[in-house]
Each structure stands twice: as C-alpha cells, then as structure tokens.
C-alpha cells in the first residue's frame, strides 16, 4: 500500500535520527514505512523496474528533506567515495525557539503574500508553519500592512535560489548602453533599493563584476550546471550605486511643479545660483542658456542626485516641459532625442 508522501518522509526522518551510525539505502528501503521492498521471486525486468522506481522516490525524498532544511549527512566510502549511508543529527536539525513575540509572528505572516505565486511563497508558508510551532496560539486581527513583489517575481525566486546554491544563470537582459543581449552570470547577491531589485554578480563572458536591474531581465532565468559551481568573493561591494552609475544633475523647474524632484534635490538660490551660472559658462553653456534658466526667467534651480540617468530622464520627460535639464549634457540631449523620436512615431 502506498503511504502518503508526508508520512513516508516523517518515518524517514525518525529512522535516520535514531540510526546509531547510519542507514544504507537497502536498509532504508527494507525497513522504513512507505518504501516498496524488492518483491521476492520477481523477474529480472520487473525487479529492475521496481528498483528504478525506488531510486527515483528516494532521490526526490532526499531533495525534499534538504529543501526544508533537514541537515542530511551522507556517509561516503573512504575508499571509492560512493554513498554508503545517511544520518540526521537531531541536535543539528531541530528548530530552536526564536523567542518571537505574537506581534512579530503576525508581521512575519505578511511574507506569505509577498512572493505571491513564486516559489519563494511556498518557502515562506513552510517557514511560517515552523515559526508557529513554537508560538502560543493567539487570535489576532488582520494587520493593516501588506507587502507585495510584482516585478519579475519568478526571476527573483530563481535568482535567490541560484545565489544560495551558487549556481550559474543565463537570461536575456536589456541594458541602457548595449541593448538586449543574453547574459551568463555567477550571481552573488540581490540588492533591493527603492523600488528596484538589482543582481550583483560576475558576467562570465566579460569576466567582470556587473550590476543588473532585475526588472530588465526578460523571459525566464535559466539555471546552468550544478550547485556550488563557483565561489562568491569574500567581500561583495554594496556601494555600487554611488561611484559608477550615480551622480547629480542640475535641473530648472517651473514654480509649483516637479515636486518629487524638489523633495529629493536641493534648491540653489542667490550666491549658489550665481556660482552655478559662472560654472555653466565655464563648461561651455552660452550666455542665453544661463540667462534663460536663471531665477529671473521664472525658473527655480535644483541639484538632484540620481542613481540611474535613465530613471531621472523618464521623470523629467513625464514632467512634460515643466523641467529643463541644465547638466549633465548627455541627459539633456537624450531627453531631446526621446521627444524627437516620439514625434516621428506619432506622425507616422
């Protein structure tokens, strides 16, 4: 009789925890409830079939146990390296009490919704059952908070898996500079900043550390090779947003407009605005450009820090003329270019 998979796994855990030294595959198959022993007097072909079915089931069970965090020790033969048995050390496997308060458990509950349909959602639900095991029952109202991940959520799950497993990944990616291309990456870490998720890793083809915006990954992320295929560097740079990609722009805003840029930026007034005018002339701006952007002409001038020029570009475009970029020049040019290209398409 086929036993329920959960019950078979439970019996496997109990058996391996109590085994004095180890249990071999044959011992497991012959004694643990839920596995089918080799039938007596079966033909060789039938026996082979049943053996193969056992092997598949046992491999899946081992994967399931590892996935849920059971430290399954594989005892290998010192001479030929073959797997000769398995063992679980109870003290390594047990869930410690995390001393979580009822309020903390409730807030952890938000994680079940967060990953939505993605595989990490299943892990979150298992985690919450585990956390609940050590927490007294309490009837609680639903929290007035929620957290959701909507962008590339399947990509995110696969990337987290790959980082944890140290497994290479391949995906299609659109970059600002070089358009769409297929990338092979050794993933190191996922960084979440503002509304964006970033993957830090090694671009295998270029042999260089790179940062990828997860929202720009399209299609599916493919896992390559085996677990543990690469080593992460001992220190992973997390100040990736300051030096290489970020900077500061000078933007003139119409009064009562560009509120988001205002709140992020710093207003230049009086002497600072004068200095700016001098500086702009020094870097090649014409006198009329400086004059036209001066406060007297009804503009208010701000310095606005940015992480990515293209995000700032989209923000300025969305202000539909209520913002004028004074520096850097490539940003100003790319805004004009976007508007011109839009007109071409709009006029067919």
């Amino acid at each position, binding site marked *: 009789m086929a036993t329920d998979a*959960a019950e078979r*796994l*439970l019996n496997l*855990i*109990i058996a391996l*925890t*109590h085994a004095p030294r180890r249990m071999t595959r044959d011992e497991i198959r012959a*004694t643990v409830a839920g596995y089918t022993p080799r039938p007596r007097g079966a033909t060789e072909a039938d026996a082979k079939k049943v053996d193969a079915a056992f092997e598949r089931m046992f491999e899946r069970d081992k994967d399931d146990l590892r*996935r*849920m*965090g059971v430290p399954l020790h594989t005892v290998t033969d010192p001479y030929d390296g073959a797997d000769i048995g398995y063992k679980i050390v*109870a003290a390594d496997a047990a*869930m410690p009490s*995390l001393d*979580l308060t009822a309020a*903390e458990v*409730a807030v952890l509950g*938000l*994680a079940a919704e967060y*990953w939505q349909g993605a595989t*990490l959602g*299943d892990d979150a639900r*298992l*985690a*919450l*059952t*585990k956390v*609940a*095991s*050590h927490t007294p*029952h309490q*009837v609680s109202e639903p929290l*007035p908070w*929620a*957290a*959701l991940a*909507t*962008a590339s959520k399947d990509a995110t799950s696969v990337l987290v*898996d790959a980082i*944890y497993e140290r497994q290479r990944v391949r995906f299609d990616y*659109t970059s600002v500079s070089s358009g*769409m291309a297929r990338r092979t990456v050794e993933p190191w870490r*996922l960084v*979440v900043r503002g*509304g*964006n*998720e970033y993957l830090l890793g090694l671009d295998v083809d270029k042999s260089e550390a790179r940062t990828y915006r997860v929202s720009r*990954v399209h299609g599916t992320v493919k896992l390559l090779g085996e677990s543990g295929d690469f080593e992460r560097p001992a220190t992973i740079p*997390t100040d990736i*947003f300051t030096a290489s990609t970020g900077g500061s722009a000078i933007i003139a805003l119409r009064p009562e407009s560009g509120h988001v840029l205002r709140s992020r930026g710093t207003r230049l007034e009086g002497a600072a605005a004068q200095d700016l005018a001098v500086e702009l002339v020094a870097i090649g701006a014409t006198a009329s450009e400086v004059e036209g952007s001066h406060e007297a002409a009804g503009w208010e001038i701000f310095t606005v820090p940015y992480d990515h020029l293209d995000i700032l570009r989209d923000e300025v*475009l969305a202000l*539909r*003329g209520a913002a*004028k970029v004074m520096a850097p020049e490539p940003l100003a040019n790319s805004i*004009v270019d*976007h*508007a011109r290209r*839009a007109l071409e*398409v*709009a006029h067919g």
Partner: protein
Amino acid sequence: MAEKALPRLTRLLGIMTYVHDQGEATFTELADHFGVTTAQIRKDIVALWSSGLPGYSGGDLIDFDAYLYDQDVASIVDSQGVTQIKLSTREAVALVGALSSLLASGAAPDVAVSAYNKIRAILGAEDPVTVVPTAEVDPAVAQSLRASVVAHKVADIEYVDASDRRTSRVIEPHRLVAIDGVAYVECFCRRAQDYRMLRLDRMVSVTAGDDDVVAPPADETGFSLVPQFEATVVAARGARWVLEDLPGVVLTDVGDDVQATFGVADLDWVADRLLAIAPYLRTVAPQSVRDALADHAHAVLATAAS
C-alpha cells in the same frame, strides 16, 4: 494528491512541537493555529500515531493519550524525539526578503525591525538579499499615516500625483502596502469618492484627522482604474521590460520586435511610458495615443529650446 508533501510534513512536525510546548491542545486550537480543518487535524494525529521507528510496533511508535484523543484533545505520551525542523536558508530568505522590502518602503510597523533582526540572525553571512534603505518617504509622513491607520481615523494629506498636480485630500486609510519596496496607502479618497492607492513618497504632508474611517476596505489590492479602450504598440525588444509592466498587457513577438496590446485607463500616463521608450517605438495605435504622445513630446521640446 490533495496536499503537497512538504506543507503536510511541516505541519505534522509542528503539531508535535506545539503540543509538546503547550502540554496539550484541543483539535480546534490546532486547526486554528495551523490554518486547517479539525477533520484534517484528526487525520494528522492518526498519521503521527502510526509513525515511528522501523519495526512499527509497541514502543517504536509516536503515542498520544487515547482518553484525551476521544475528547478531541492532543497530548503526547511518547514523541520518539520528533520535533520541528529548523528554518532552511531559503525559508529564512523568503521571510527576510519580504520584511526588508517592507522596511525599505519606509512604512513598516516598528515590530518589523525586531522580527527582521531575529530571522536575519539565522542567515549569518549567507544572506543573499540586501536591502539598501532609501530616505524618499518623509519619516513624519510615515509616522502620521501609521498612527491614522492603526487608530482607524481619517488623515488630511497634501499629495502630488503622477502628473505633478498638487492636491489636498481627506483620505480614509485602510492599509499600508509596500509594493516592490515602494510604500502606498490603500484608502478611500473622499475627494474622489473612490478607492485609491497613494504613494507615500508623493505626500508633502499628513495631518491626523478626528473623523473615523467609515468606508469599508476595498475588496482587492490594486489600482481601481478601468481601461477605456485598447492600444497596440510595436517596439524593438529592448523596450520589452517597460511594456511588460503595463497593466493587463499581452505581449507577442513579431520577428525581432515585440507587440504589446493593453487597456488604456489614463491616456497621459500611457503617453509618459511611451515617451520613455520612444527610441524603441515602431508603431503606436490608435490615433488618440499618438496625439497624446505628440503633445508630450512638443511640450518637452519647447522647454528644451527655451
């Protein structure tokens, strides 16, 4: 198969740990605690009862108090050492990732910090996810809104919408939601007389009001904008990541290009998205979307030339 193996296995182990910690527990309490029916709990206890060490007789098995079982109460006589398994790395990541997103949004309840730290400690140096906080939400705005949400009171807000219009509104806040690390409040807006999701980083100020929240929460999370008509855009595949984000979009590959069909609820918002990917655009339909796109582009060019 009715239920996947791991959720059930985790619950079976959880029942053992919970009943051990609490001494005994009614089936109703277990059902509530683990979010299943009492019938399922009864099946779980029976399954546990017949599990144990190879041999599976007498002293090999997990044992419950039979007298109490008849009264729908679980009490362990012999656990065979069975207890819950510690969190796997992935499970801890799933919890930490969700909480860090909430924390990064700037709208998290205080208790999220201590919960985060306790789970984060399990991961040690292995944490594959790092959240870099951004200070875009004014802490005073977040604090006032948190207080209003918890107290079920209205709030007076100064808000700047996506089209840069500044308005004063009275909102009935229901829930704070972090979507991809960006904080929103789900609310009923008395000015619009409709449900809205408003971004906290677009609030200039929040003042607590005295009125109670009276509108019931919306049925579902999300934006309640209703599409007015359908638009079709063809663009080079480099723009795919932007098109993928359009609500309700259907994407089809056309040679090296991608065709996106989607409902338009807010014409100006759609024109903004298209302007952002203008260098990739091939065709845009219908005419009304092309007109809006042209209007926006003219406004941008007029300013750039000034």
